[in-house]
C-alpha cells in the first residue's frame, strides 16, 4: 500500500539539470516497527548512533527480508518479505527463534558456516551475538561455540575472506568504553551544552576473527597485524583495495586517523596498516574526520575501488580516489561532493545506479547527533534530508528529496524484484521507511554471482563488465558497508547488453564469461 509519494523533483540548487529522466521513489507503508535506541532526546553518547539494518534472503526464497536492530529491551526483529511483486513484510522474529534483547547496535550478514544460508552477527554494547541460520527455519545462538562474543561497544561488523581460504572471517568495529553508571559529563559544541564524548573517553580496540572452518573462530587481531592504537571505530569495508587479488580492510575511525590494512599476501596471513601512506587516514588537508558511512565504487572508471566517507556537520564528506598505485587522492571538491554536505551529518551511504542510466548515483542518509542542533545554534539541524546525488558525467548533482529525518542506517536492494534498487532507511529511535524505486526504465541486464560453498554470495568478488558497445564498468560484490548495517550482496543491474564478464573471486581465482544468456540474466557460479 502506498502511503505517499515522496519524491522527486529534479532540483538543481543552481546546477544544470540532469539530462536523463528523474529518479523516482515512493514511500511504502509497511508493518515494520520503529527502531528503539534510547530516549527521543538522547542525553548520552550511547544513544546517538542509532541501530542498524540487514537486508538479506534468510530463507533463500528469492526475495529480500529485513532484520532490524534495537538497542533496548525491545527485541531485534526479523521481517519476512511477503510481497512478491509488491512490498510487504511480516514479523517472523519469534517464529524463527530470535530473542536478542540487548543494547544492540549493528548487524553483519554472512554465511559463517558455509551451509548456504546467511547468518547474522549482531554487535552490542556488551557481548555480541552470532545467530546461525538453520535452513531458513530457525536461528540459533552460536556465539559461545564460535567464540565470537566480544564484549566491547560493537558498532559495525563485516564478513570477508581475509586470508583467502574461501570462508568468511569477521572484522568487528569497537567504539569506546562506556559505563552506563558513569556516563561522561556534558561537553560544549559551538557554544551549546551537549552530551559528552567521544572526546575524553577511552577508545576500544577492534577484533578480527579468523573462521577456522569447523564452526569456531579464532581471535587473530594481533597475529594478523591488526593490533594498533585503539581508535573510535565506527565502520569498516573489506575489499581488494590494492588490486592484488587479496582482500584488504579500510577502517573508519571517529575523529581519529582511518586505517587501511593491506593484505601482504604472506604466509601466515599478515596485514600492514598503510592508512597514512595511502592517503586515506585523513582528508586531503590532513584533517581527521568522523567516518560513519563508507561507500565504495569505481567513481573515476579506472577499475579500482574508490572510497567515499560521510562525516560530521561543519565538515565535508570525502571522496578518496584510488589511483591504482597504492595511493588515494582526496578529490571531493572536483566531483562537487564537498560543500553540499557541510550542514549535514552523514551516516550510511551507498552507490547504486538508481535510474539505470549506466552510472552509479549516491544516496546518503543524514541526521544530527545532538538534539539541541538547529541551523541557528549549530549550523546544522537535528532533522535532515537524505541526499540523493545523481551522477552526471564527472559530477554528482543533487536531486531534491522531501522530508527531514534523524536517519542513521540504510540498506539497498531490489525488494520487489522489478529490476531496480529500492532503499530502506532507519531513523535513530524512529520510523523505518521503505522507499520503492519507481523510476522508469527498460528491463535491465542482470548479473548475480554465486560463490563456492564457503562463501556462497561471493562476498568480496570483483566484476569487470564489457558491454557490446565496447564500454566497460567495474562493480564489487559487497554488503554495501552501511553504517552498522549490511545489505544483500547485490544483483548487478545494467542498462545495456553485456558482451564479456570477468570475475575475480575473493580467493583470487579469475573467471571469464562470454556466453551471455539471451534473457539478460546471468548467474555466474564460481568454478571449483
Amino acid at each position, binding site marked *: 500500500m502506498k502511503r505517499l509519494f515522496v519524491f522527486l523533483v529534479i532540483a538543481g540548487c543552481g546546477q544544470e539539470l540532469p539530462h536523463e529522466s528523474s529518479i523516482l521513489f515512493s514511500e511504502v507503508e509497511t508493518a515494520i516497527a520503529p527502531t528503539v535506541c534510547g530516549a527521543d532526546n538522547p542525553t548520552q553518547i550511547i544513544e546517538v548512533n542509532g541501530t542498524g539494518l540487514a537486508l538479506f534472503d534468510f530463507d533463500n526464497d528469492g526475495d529480500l527480508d529485513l532484520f532490524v536492530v534495537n538497542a533496548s529491551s525491545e527485541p531485534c526483529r526479523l521481517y519476512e518479505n511477503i510481497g512478491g511483486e509488491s512490498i510487504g513484510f511480516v514479523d517472523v522474529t519469534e517464529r524463527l527463534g530470535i530473542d536478542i534483547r540487548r543494547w544492540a547496535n549493528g548487524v553483519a550478514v554472512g554465511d559463517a558456516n558455509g551451509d548456504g544460508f546467511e547468518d547474522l552477527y549482531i554487535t552490542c554494547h556488551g557481548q555480541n551475538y552470532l545467530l546461525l541460520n538453520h535452513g531458513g527455519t530457525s536461528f540459533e545462538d552460536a556465539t559461545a561455540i564460535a567464540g565470537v562474543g566480544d564484549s566491547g561497544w560493537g558498532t559495525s561488523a563485516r564478513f570477508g575472506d581475509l586470508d583467502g581460504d574461501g570462508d568468511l572471517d569477521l572484522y568487528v568495529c569497537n567504539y569506546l568504553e562506556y559505563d552506563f553508571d558513569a556516563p561522561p559529563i556534558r561537553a560544549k559544541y559551538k557554544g551549546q551544552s551537549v552530551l559528552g564524548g567521544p572526546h575524553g573517553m577511552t577508545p576500544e580496540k577492534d577484533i578480527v576473527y579468523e573462521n577456522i572452518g569447523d564452526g569456531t573462530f579464532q581471535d587473530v587481531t594481533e597475529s594478523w597485524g591488526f593490533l594498533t592504537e585503539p581508535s573510535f571505530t565506527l565502520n569498516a569495508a573489506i575489499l581488494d583495495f590494492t588490486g592484488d587479488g587479496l582482500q584488504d580492510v579500510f577502517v573508519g575511525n571517529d*575523529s581519529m586517523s582511518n586505517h587501511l590494512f593491506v593484505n601482504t599476501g604472506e604466509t601466515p596471513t599478515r596485514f600492514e596498516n598503510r592508512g597514512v601512506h595511502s592517503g586515506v587516514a585523513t582528508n586531503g588537508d590532513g584533517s581527521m574526520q568522523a567516518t560513519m558511512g563508507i561507500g565504495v565504487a569505481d567513481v573515476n572508471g579506472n577499475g579500482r575501488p574508490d572510497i567515499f566517507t560521510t562525516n560530521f556537520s561543519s565538515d565535508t564528506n570525502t571522496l578518496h580516489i584510488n589511483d591504482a598505485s597504492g595511493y588515494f587522492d582526496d578529490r571531493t571538491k572536483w566531483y562537487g561532493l564537498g560543500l553540499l554536505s557541510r550542514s549535514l551529518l552523514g551516516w550510511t551511504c551507498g552507490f547504486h545506479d538508481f535510474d539505470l542510466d549506466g552510472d552509479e548515483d549516491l544516496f546518503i542518509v543524514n541526521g544530527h547527533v545532538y538534539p539541541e542542533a538547529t541551523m541557528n545554534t549549530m*549550523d546544522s539541524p537535528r532533522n535532515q534530508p537524505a541526499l540523493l546525488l545523481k551522477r552526471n558525467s564527472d559530477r554528482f548533482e543533487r536531486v531534491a528529496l522531501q522530508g527531514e529525518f534523524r536517519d542513521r542506517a540504510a540498506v539497498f536492494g531490489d525488494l520487489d524484484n522489478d529490476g531496480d534498487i529500492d532503499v530502506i532507511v532507519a531513523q535513530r529511535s524512529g520510523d523505518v521507511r521503505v522507499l520503492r524505486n519507481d523510476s522508469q526504465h527498460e528491463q535491465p541486464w542482470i548479473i548475480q554471482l554465486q560463490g563456492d560453498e564457503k562463501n556462497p554470495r561471493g562476498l568480496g568478488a570483483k566484476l569487470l563488465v564489457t558491454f557490446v558497445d565496447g564500454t566497460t564498468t567495474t562493480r564489487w560484490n559487497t554488503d554495501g558497508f552501511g553504517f552498522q548495517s549490511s545489505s544483500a550482496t547485490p544483483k548487478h543491474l545494467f542498462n545495456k547488453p553485456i558482451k564479456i564478464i570477468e570475475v575475480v573471486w575473493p580467493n583470487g581465482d579469475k573467471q571469464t564469461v562470454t556466453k551471455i544468456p539471451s534473457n539478460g540474466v546471468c548467474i555466474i557460479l564460481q568454478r571449483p
Partner: protein
Amino acid sequence: MLFKNQNYLTYKSVLMVLLLMVTACKQQQPEQAEQEKLVSGLKTQYDLINGGNTGSARVRLRQYMVKHGETSQPLFLMGLSYHNDKQYSKAIEWFTKSIESNGDTYSLVWHFMGWSHYYLGESEASKKSFDTFLQTENGEPDSMFALGLIAMEGGDSKEAKSIFLLVISSPIANTSIQAKAKARLADVYVELGDRQHAIVLYQEAVKQNPNLYEAWHRLATTLQRVGKNAQASIALHECTLARNRVRPDLHRTTRFPE
C-alpha cells in the same frame, strides 16, 4: 557573472591589475580601509571581536544599538562576532539585518556574508555575496580567493586556476593570502596531472606561510606520489608541527569540526 569566459577574464585581468596598482600605492588593504570607516564608538567592540572576546563585544554592541540605533555598522559587527565564533547561520542573520538597515551598507558585510555562506555549503549565495563585494572592492584578494574555491567545487579547474593566478599576482594580496592561493592553485595542478608544478607551488606556499598545515599535508602527499618519500616524511612532520601551532585543538584525541 565574474570570469564567465576567457575573453572577459583577460579583459578583466588587465583592468584589475591597473586598479590594483593604483590601490597598492595607498599601501593599504581594502579590509583595513573599510575598518577605518568604522565610527569611533565601535572601535572597542571591533577590537574585542578580533581579540576573541565575542561575548563581551556583543554586550557592548547591544548597548551601543540601544543608544544609537540599529545601523549598518553595529549590525555588521554583531554578525562578525558570530562569524568569528564559527556560527555562520547566526552571522548571516545579522549581516542580513546590516544590509537591510537604513543608511549606507557597510560593504565589508558582503565579504563576510560570502564566507559565512561558503562555510554553510551554500556556494551560489556565497558567490553572489563575493561578487557583490567585488563590485565595490574590485580585486580584493580574499574574496577572489573564495571565488577560486567555489570554482573548484564547481569542477571548473580552468576558472579556478585563472582566479588563483590573479590573487597571487595581486599587488595588494598579503603573503598569507598569496600562500593560500598558491596552495590551492597547486591543488588545481594536481587535478590537471601536473604534480611537479604543484610541488613547486606548495613549497612556495609553505615558505610564505609555514603555518599553512593543509599545504604541508598536500605537499607531503604529492611528494610521495612522485617517489620523493624522504622529503614527503619531512613535509608530513612539518604538517604536524604547523597544525599544533595553529590549531592545538585539532591535536586533541578527538574533536568535532566547528
